[in-house]
């Protein structure tokens, strides 16, 4: 008997928790900063309405209709498309491997913050040496002998253990229960951090940089592509998570409004993160004379800029340490609530096809996943390979899968049937405009994102030295090749029980 979410609140918290992740904290703020500031909000809002919400409704509705994860979902469209489902659920497993290493660093910094609070070490004011101690250093991605961070490796064990403990308990007993605690806790803590950041001296400089509109850029197509890419990646679409979560909805559950709440909760978090990050950076710009991009535009903001800012908020080391602990605890929760959804995406797909117990399957994936994550605990892995794998799997493959998914489901299954499914018990109904968006508008925009990403990958690759090119081929294209080969192997295996085709249902 297939499990269901026990409550609508539980489902929404789980889905929002899946969408809200570490990327929200640094991706959205710097995308907006680089792409016209406040003017970026216009394409961003348009992308929410025309891409994220329609796709979320589609994934929930199709998941519930099929009562299965991505593999079953694509298999129902035609046997030859099953492999697309396997590639789709391979993405979260690969992403999890490096994502767990970043969550691991948050965990290490959480512990080190407690060390700061209890006077064992004083590092928040100058996090550079501690960052160096935790993530080490390597010359390039091929410098595999540079060493391994035992801090990250130890933390990864804990992260995978947490994932395993939560997901093996299933939907209602594991994911829903934890999301009911984690997601609201994260939201409340981030709002408190945001309010505190806005009160800092110099926050107005940061908010000015983030929100001052440069409308001359609004006609630049790259801004629109960036906005669509931001919205698409941020909402965890096209990686099988939302199809899997939708498949556990009960027959009379609302779909349309739940999809809107999930997307807007994630975007609300984007804006909270934007205000928090740029208020804090504005404070550092005013008081330390640094630039907005002095700490990079990625994880460096969280792991270097924030500890410095926290250390200047109070002269009391106990308060500094506890603030640091709470901040990195927020990162840890944001990471775990996303990583459990990634694990569930593959688990749902595999449980549909193979007759295997959930516990055995989750244990197997966790062991393999941990082995993969351990590679990113190496100095070369964390400092170089992680970025390469992320740009190939996290960008090109996901956008490509989104394009394939929307075309196959819209044209082969049919948007009219899916709209009927979505409208049946929803708080409000969606009209035929939704069909047009899915059939014509979204594929066009996603196609532009895919083409832009491919051009960027190739131009970026050929502008590098030979080590860079070789690293891209081995770790970028190599990972993509392994994912496709693994998908073909799983695809070849027989179904334990032949699934009924959607077209046969009701006969």
């Amino acid at each position: 008997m297939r499990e269901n979410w026990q409550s609508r609140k539980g489902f929404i918290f789980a889905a929002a928790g899946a969408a809200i992740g570490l990327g929200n904290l640094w991706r959205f703020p710097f995308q907006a900063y680089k792409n016209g500031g406040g003017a970026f909000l216009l394409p961003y809002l348009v992308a929410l309405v025309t891409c994220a919400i329609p796709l979320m409704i589609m994934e929930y509705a199709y998941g519930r209709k099929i009562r299965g994860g991505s593999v079953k979902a694509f298999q129902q469209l035609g046997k030859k498309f099953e492999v697309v489902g396997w590639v789709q659920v391979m993405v979260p497993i690969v992403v999890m491997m490096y994502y767990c290493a970043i969550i691991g660093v948050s965990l290490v910094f959480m512990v080190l913050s407690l060390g700061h609070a209890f006077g064992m070490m004083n590092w928040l004011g100058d996090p550079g040496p501690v960052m160096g101690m935790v993530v080490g250093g390597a010359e390039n991605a091929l410098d595999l002998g540079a060493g391994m961070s035992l801090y990250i490796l130890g933390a990864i064990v804990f992260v995978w253990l947490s994932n395993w403990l939560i997901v093996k308990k299933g939907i209602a007993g594991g994911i829903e229960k934890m999301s009911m605690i984690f997601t609201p806790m994260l939201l409340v803590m981030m709002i408190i951090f945001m309010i505190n950041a806005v009160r800092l001296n110099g926050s107005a400089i940061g908010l000015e940089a983030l929100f001052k509109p440069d409308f001359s850029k609004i006609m630049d197509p790259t801004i629109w592509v960036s906005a669509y890419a931001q919205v698409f990646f941020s909402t965890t679409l096209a990686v099988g998570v939302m199809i899997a979560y939708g498949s556990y909805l009960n027959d009379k559950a609302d779909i349309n409004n739940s999809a809107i709440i999930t997307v807007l909760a994630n975007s609300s978090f984007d804006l909270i993160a934007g205000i928090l990050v740029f208020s804090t950076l504005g404070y550092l710009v005013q008081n330390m004379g640094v630039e907005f991009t002095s700490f990079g535009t990625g994880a460096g903001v969280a792991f270097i800029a924030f500890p410095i800012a926290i250390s200047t908020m109070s002269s009391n080391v106990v308060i500094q340490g506890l603030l640091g602990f709470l901040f990195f605890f927020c990162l840890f929760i944001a990471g775990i609530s996303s990583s459990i959804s990634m694990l569930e995406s593959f688990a749902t797909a595999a449980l549909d096809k193979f007759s295997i117990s959930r516990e055995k399957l989750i244990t197997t994936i966790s062991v393999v996943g941990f082995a993969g994550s351990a590679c990113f605990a190496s100095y070369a892995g964390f400092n170089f390979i992680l970025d390469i794998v992320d740009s190939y799997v996290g960008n090109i493959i996901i956008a490509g899968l989104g394009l394939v998914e929307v075309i196959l489901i819209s044209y082969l299954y049919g948007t009219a049937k899916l709209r009927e499914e979505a409208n049946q018990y929803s708080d409000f109904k969606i009209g035929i405009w939704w069909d047009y968006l899915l059939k014509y508008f979204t594929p066009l925009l996603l196609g532009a994102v895919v083409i832009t990403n491919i051009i960027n990958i190739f131009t970026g690759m050929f502008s590098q030295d030979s080590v860079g090119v070789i690293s891209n081929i081995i770790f970028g294209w190599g990972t993509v090749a392994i994912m496709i080969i693994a998908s073909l192997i799983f695809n070849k295996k027989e179904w334990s029980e032949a699934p009924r085709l959607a077209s046969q249902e009701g006969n």
Partner: protein
Amino acid sequence: MSSSAIIMMVVGCGLVWGGAITAIIIALKVEKKNAAKA
């Protein structure tokens, strides 16, 4: 902060946060109505 930055911040946050709160209120109202029916 310049007035244009303040306007963009208010409009952006207002639409996203306001939209999220409105959607949650609609969901709660419908749940209440359904509970009363049952």
